[in-house]
C-alpha cells in the first residue's frame, strides 16, 4: 500500500470508530499517534543506540533501556506535543471558555421571562404578536448565550404554553421556538464562528463582521414569514381580545423595556461592537461580556452561589470537550496530510473537473448530511478542514465558505429525523404535542435557510460588505 492509501485507510477506520460511538477526541489522538508512528518511523533513530549497546555487550537492563529509548525516539511524539501545545496556547480559542461562561451565566439570569413578556406587550398590535415576541426573544437570547438547547427549552416552557393558551397553531408556535433558538450559533458573537476561525485560519473579526448581515437576513426572513403567515392565516395566530392583552400604559411599558430589553441589548452590542471596531480582542470582549453577564445576573437577583458553581463547571466541561477535539483533530490531520491523504483527496476532487458552483453545492450537501448524526463542533473541527485546502482551487473565499457552513448548520438542528431543537422542545412540551407537529413546524424554516444560502451565494456582498467596509480588503 502506498502512503496516501494508508491515509485513506486511517480516515476509514476513524469513521468506523465514530459509528461505534467512542469519544471522538481520543480516537483521533490514538489514530494520529498510531499512523504517525508508522509515517515517521526511522529505523536509524529506533535501532542505533540499541545496536550499539548490543555490540558493546551491555547488560540486559541497559539493552532494554536503549530499546525503549529508541522506541519513543520517533518524530510523531514531538509533533504530538507541539500540536497539543499549539491548541493550549491558541490565542483565538482563549475566547471560547469566556463566551461559554457568559452564556451559562446569562441563561441563568432569569431574563427570558421578562424579555418575552415585555416584547409581547410592545408588539401586541402586530399580527401574530406572541410569535413575533417569541422569535425576537429567542434571537436575542440565543445571540447572548449561544446555547441552543437552553434557549429552546426555556422558551418552550415559558413562551410555548402561552402561545398554545392563546390558541396558536401547535406547529406554528413550535417552529418559531426551534428556529429562533438555533440562531444562536450563527449570529455573532457565536462560539461556532470562533471555532471555525481557529480551524480555518480566517480572521475571527472578519468572520464576525461577515456573519452579521447573513444572520440578520435569516432572522429577518423568519420575522417576515411569521408576520406574513399570521396575516394570511389568522386562525393559527388569533388576535388577542382586549381583555387578554390587558391595559398597560406607555409609561409602564417603557419601564419594562428599560429593565428587560435594554440591558441585554446593551450587553450584546457592547461585546460585538468592541470586537468589530477593534477596541478589544474577542478574548477581551468575551471577558467583558462575562463580567457584564455577572452584573446582569446580580441585578436580576439571580446570582446565587449554586448558579455560579453550575456555570463554572459547565464552562469547564464544554471547553474541555471542544478543545480536546482540537487536540485530536490537529494531530490526526497533520499525520493525514503528511501521509499524502490531503493531496490525494484534492487530486481526486480537482480531477473531477467540476465547476465551483457544483463543488460548493456538493460540499454543502455533505455538510448538511453530516449534520444529521453529528454535532456542529465535530463537523467544524474535523470535517470542514478536509474541504478547506480545496477552496483556492475553486476560487472560493474561506470566509464566504465559513458563512455558508454556519447557515447550513442551522439545518442540522431542524431537519428530521435527528433535529435536536425539535427533540429539546418535545422534551418539555405538554404531552399532547406530537413530535411530527414540531417537525412540520420546522419545515418552513428549513426552506428559509436554503433561501438565505442561495441569496448569499447570488449576492456575496451580503457577506463581504461589512468586513471590507471596516477592515478594507
Amino acid at each position: 500500500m502506498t502512503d496516501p492509501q494508508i491515509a485513506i485507510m486511517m480516515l476509514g477506520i476513524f469513521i468506523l470508530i465514530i459509528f461505534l460511538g467512542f469519544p471522538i477526541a481520543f480516537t483521533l489522538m490514538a489514530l494520529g499517534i498510531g499512523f504517525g508512528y508508522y509515517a515517521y518511523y526511522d529505523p536509524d533513530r529506533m535501532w542505533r543506540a540499541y545496536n550499539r549497546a548490543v555490540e558493546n555487550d551491555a547488560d540486559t537492563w541497559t539493552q532494554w533501556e536503549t530499546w525503549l529509548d529508541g522506541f519513543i525516539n520517533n518524530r510523531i511524539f514531538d509533533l504530538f506535543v507541539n500540536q497539543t501545545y499549539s491548541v493550549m496556547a491558541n490565542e483565538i480559542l482563549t475566547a471560547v471558555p469566556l463566551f461559554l461562561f457568559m452564556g451559562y451565566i446569562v441563561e441563568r439570569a432569569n431574563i427570558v421571562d421578562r424579555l418575552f413578556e415585555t416584547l409581547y406587550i410592545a408588539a401586541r398590535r402586530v399580527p401574530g404578536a406572541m410569535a413575533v415576541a417569541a422569535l425576537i426573544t429567542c434571537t436575542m437570547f440565543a445571540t447572548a448565550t449561544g446555547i441552543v438547547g437552553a434557549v429552546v427549552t426555556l422558551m418552550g416552557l415559558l413562551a410555548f404554553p402561552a402561545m398554545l393558551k392563546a390558541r396558536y397553531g401547535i406547529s406554528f408556535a413550535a417552529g418559531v421556538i426551534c428556529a429562533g433558538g438555533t440562531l444562536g450559533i450563527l449570529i455573532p458573537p457565536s462560539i461556532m464562528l470562533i471555532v471555525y476561525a481557529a480551524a480555518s485560519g480566517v480572521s475571527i473579526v472578519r468572520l464576525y463582521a461577515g456573519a452579521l448581515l447573513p444572520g440578520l437576513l435569516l432572522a429577518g426572513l423568519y420575522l417576515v414569514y411569521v408576520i406574513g403567515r399570521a396575516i394570511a392565516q389568522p386562525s393559527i395566530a388569533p388576535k388577542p381580545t382586549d381583555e387578554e392583552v390587558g391595559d398597560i400604559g406607555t409609561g409602564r411599558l417603557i419601564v419594562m423595556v428599560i429593565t428587560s430589553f435594554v440591558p441585554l441589548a446593551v450587553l450584546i452590542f457592547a461585546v460585538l461592537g468592541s470586537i468589530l471596531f477593534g477596541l478589544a480582542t474577542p478574548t477581551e470582549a468575551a471577558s467583558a461580556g462575562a463580567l457584564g453577564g455577572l452584573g446582569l445576573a446580580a441585578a436580576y437577583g439571580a446570582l446565587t452561589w449554586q448558579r455560579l458553581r453550575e456555570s463554572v463547571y459547565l464552562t469547564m466541561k464544554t471547553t474541555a470537550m471542544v478543545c480536546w477535539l482540537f487536540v485530536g483533530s490537529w494531530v490526526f490531520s497533520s499525520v493525514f496530510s503528511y501521509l499524502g491523504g490531503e493531496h490525494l483527496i484534492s487530486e481526486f476532487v480537482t480531477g473531477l473537473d467540476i465547476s465551483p458552483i457544483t463543488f460548493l453545492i456538493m460540499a454543502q450537501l455533505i455538510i448538511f448530511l453530516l449534520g444529521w448524526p453529528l454535532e456542529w463542533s465535530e463537523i467544524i473541527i474535523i470535517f470542514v478542514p478536509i474541504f478547506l485546502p480545496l477552496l483556492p482551487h475553486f476560487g472560493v473565499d474561506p470566509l464566504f465558505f465559513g458563512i455558508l457552513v454556519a447557515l447550513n448548520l442551522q439545518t442540522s438542528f431542524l431537519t428530521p429525523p435527528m433535529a435536536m431543537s425539535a427533540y429539546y422542545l418535545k422534551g418539555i412540551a405538554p404531552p399532547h404535542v406530537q413530535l411530527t407537529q414540531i417537525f412540520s413546524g420546522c419545515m418552513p424554516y428549513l426552506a428559509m435557510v436554503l433561501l438565505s444560502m442561495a441569496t448569499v451565494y447570488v449576492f456575496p456582498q451580503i457577506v463581504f460588505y461589512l468586513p471590507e467596509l471596516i477592515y478594507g480588503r
Partner: protein
Amino acid sequence: MTKFVLFIDSVTGWFGKAFAWLILLMAFGMGYEVMMRYFFNAPTSWAFDMSYILYGTLFMMGGAYTLSRNAHVRGDFLYRLWRPRTQATVELVLYIFFFFPGVIALVVAGWKYAARSWRYLEVSVNSPAGIPVFQFKTMLVVAGMLLFIQGIAQICRCIICLRTGEWLQHEEDVEELEQVLIKQAAAGHLDDAERIARGRDDA
C-alpha cells in the same frame, strides 16, 4: 471495584472543578487589562500570556473530569440503541486500542517536552515581562496522567457493566439546563420545570 471507580471519579472531578474556577480569574484579569488600557492608558505586559496560560490549563485539567462525566462528544446515534452490555463490550475494546496509546504518548512525550522547559526555567517570549511557561508545559503531563487513571476507571466501569448489565452512575454533577428541564418534564413535573425556567426555584 465500584469504590475504586468512584474514588477516581472524585479525584479527577476535584481537579476539574478546582481548575474550572480559573475562568473567573480569566474574566477579571482580562477585564482589568481592558480597564487599564482605556482608562489609565497603562496596558499590562502580562495579560496576553495570562489569558492563554489560564485557558490552556483550564481545558487540559478538565479532560479527565469531562471523560468521567461522559461529556466528550461521541457519535452515539447507533451506540444509544444498544443494550448496556453490548455498549460495554465495544467500549472496553475501544478503550484499550483507541484511548491508551494517545494518552500514554501524551504522558511520555509531554514529560520530555516539559523536562526540557524546566531545565532552563523557560519564560514566554511574547513580552519582556518574562512570564514563566515551564509550569504550563507541565500541564501536558498532568493532564495525561489524569486521563490515564480515568481511563482505567472507565475500563472498570465497562467490566462492572458487563457483570451487572447496568452502567455505574457517576457522582452527582452539574447538568446542562436543558437536561435538567427535560428530566423534570419527563418525570411529570412540568410545573417544576416551568418554575426553574422562570428562575423561581431557589430565589
